[in-house]
């Protein structure tokens, strides 16, 4: 086996030095009745060339080279080449969690830079080293609000990503936390009047997403006022980090939970992505996950360490802020490199391109017969919802024939929206793709 660095003779020598006659003697503690005496029924050992051939073959069964209008919490942005060059350095790739600070300063400093960038982007004071993803991050943020306020209810906007809401429900089920959902209005934003009614003196957290699942930007200052009036904390979930290049950060929020996949992380069929929580300094002690802090060594040199670890499971055990241990360090590094490549100017320019594409696409689609643009009257980033006279499965097949993957059907999460679909236009989408898609959408009605 090519990964195993021992010759048969060396194995024999080691057994002899240990003082056993065979390797099986070392396993003799396992009761005989349970020992596996046959080969595992898994594929036979394969050559590297065969492994590559197998995955290439399976990959070819997935479509490639299509223009895709899919978004909904996973976004296709161009990934600068240097991201993969750098994260594949063995010193980053094959290092462990930086508990031994003296020999993991590389990871520690990179995380410190990541924390700084997230704080800058969100307008919060501090950020943690990462969470699993945006969905679990949002759930952990609500739990954090519960610890801070000592209250036990959450109010959640229906415009939050449906899968994030499902995850939240799973996380809250066994904690006696009641959640109520707040509807949206005709402009695709959370219904402020309904929100005002739902938030009470018992509400720990108000959870909204902005840009929300429909791509609409929520009125964060107004929502914050409603939450804070009753002493509840505002948790803002951001599924599209690139929006922060052009959209005002939710500075009125108490906790911001970001999915940072957009920052140079491959779509990879849903993961690994990277969540991150940012908050006000005063809530620092209640933030889950790892934190890197700056300090000095015995010679006065600047260095970085994992800090405030008494919040965590390995010390506080059942009283920990969360059971999280492994996080998404390497993915956070990808995001850090991405944000360094684009920088202060580039992130705005990138966001502007996304904004322009969506504005163009929405205006173009809206002109087609049988297509209606929903949720007008509130600002959007790079996603929008259309309603079509024709059922989506009909036109989506025609789109595929043109090598285009259309928007996401919303019916399964929002039955009231009928034929509505969610479209996303990130910067790799070309004008000709938008125009081709528009033509197909219109064609159905002309024929039918």
């Amino acid at each position, binding site marked *: 086996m090519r990964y195993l660095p021992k010759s048969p003779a060396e194995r024999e020598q080691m057994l002899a030095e240990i003082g056993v006659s065979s390797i099986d003697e070392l396993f003799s503690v396992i009761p005989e009745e349970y020992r596996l005496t046959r080969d595992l029924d898994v594929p036979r050992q394969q050559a590297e060339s065969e492994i590559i051939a197998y995955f290439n073959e399976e990959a070819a069964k997935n479509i490639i080279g299509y223009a895709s209008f899919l978004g909904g919490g996973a976004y296709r942005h161009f990934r600068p080449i240097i991201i993969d060059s750098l994260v594949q350095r063995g010193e980053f790739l094959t290092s462990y969690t930086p508990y031994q600070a003296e020999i993991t300063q590389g990871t520690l400093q990179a995380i410190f830079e990541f924390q700084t960038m997230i704080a800058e982007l969100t307008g919060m004071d501090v950020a943690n080293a990462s969470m699993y993803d945006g969905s679990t991050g949002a759930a952990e943020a609500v739990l954090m609000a519960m610890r801070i306020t000592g209250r036990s209810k959450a109010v959640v906007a229906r415009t939050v990503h449906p899968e994030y809401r499902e995850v939240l429900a799973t996380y809250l089920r066994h904690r006696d936390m009641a959640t109520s959902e707040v509807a949206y209005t005709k402009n695709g934003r959370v219904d402020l009047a309904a929100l005002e009614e739902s938030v009470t003196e018992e509400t720990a957290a108000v959870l909204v997403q902005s840009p929300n699942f429909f791509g609409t930007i929520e009125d964060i200052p107004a929502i914050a006022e409603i939450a804070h009036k009753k002493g509840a904390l505002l948790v803002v979930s951001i599924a599209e980090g690139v929006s922060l290049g052009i959209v005002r950060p939710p500075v009125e929020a108490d906790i911001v939970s970001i999915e940072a996949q957009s920052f140079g992380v491959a779509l990879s069929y849903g993961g690994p992505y990277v969540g991150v929580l940012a908050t006000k300094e005063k809530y620092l*002690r209640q933030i889950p996950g790892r934190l890197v802090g700056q300090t000095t060594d015995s010679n006065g040199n600047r260095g970085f360490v994992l800090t405030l*670890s*008494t919040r965590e499971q390995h*010390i*506080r055990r059942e*009283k920990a802020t969360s059971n999280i241990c492994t996080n998404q360090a390497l993915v956070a590094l990808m995001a850090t490199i991405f944000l360094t490549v684009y920088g202060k100017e580039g992130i705005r320019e990138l966001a502007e391109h996304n904004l322009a594409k969506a504005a163009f696409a929405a205006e173009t689609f809206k002109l087609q017969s049988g297509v209606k643009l929903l949720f007008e009257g509130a600002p959007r980033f790079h996603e929008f919802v259309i309603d079509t006279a024709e059922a989506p499965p009909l036109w989506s097949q025609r789109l595929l024939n043109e090598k285009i993957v259309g928007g996401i059907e919303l019916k399964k999460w929002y039955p009231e929206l009928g034929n509505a679909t969610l479209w996303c236009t990130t910067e790799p989408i070309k004008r000709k793709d938008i125009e081709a898609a528009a033509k197909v959408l219109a064609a159905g009605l002309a024929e039918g």
Partner: protein
Amino acid sequence: MAYPTNYRYTREHEWISVEGKIGTIGITDYAQNSLGDIVYVDAPKVGDTVTAHATFGSVESVKAVSDLFSPVSGTVTETNESLKTEPDKINSAPHETWIIKVELSDPAQFDGLLDAAAYEAFIAEEQ
């Protein structure tokens, strides 16, 4: 370090001194010594109630958390704000650095606690 004889002590290593109805509570030299450099003190708010033998907060070193147990029942009247920025005062002067002050609901509880001699005997055993 000497254990003041006018204080009373718990088996969880808190001390209390009482003047009138107000009890002043901190942790002992033994406790700070076994915990090491204290980096954070989590104390209740003024107006919170504390219960004898129940936890009312915690003290943290870099790698350990220790629950604080109240010697008596009562209502918190004051918390030591200076510990927010200088938690190390507990290390340098444990018996002078209080954490909370409490209005006792049952002053008789004070007498049920260990006196200095009994506490010193208790920690001698623990070591």
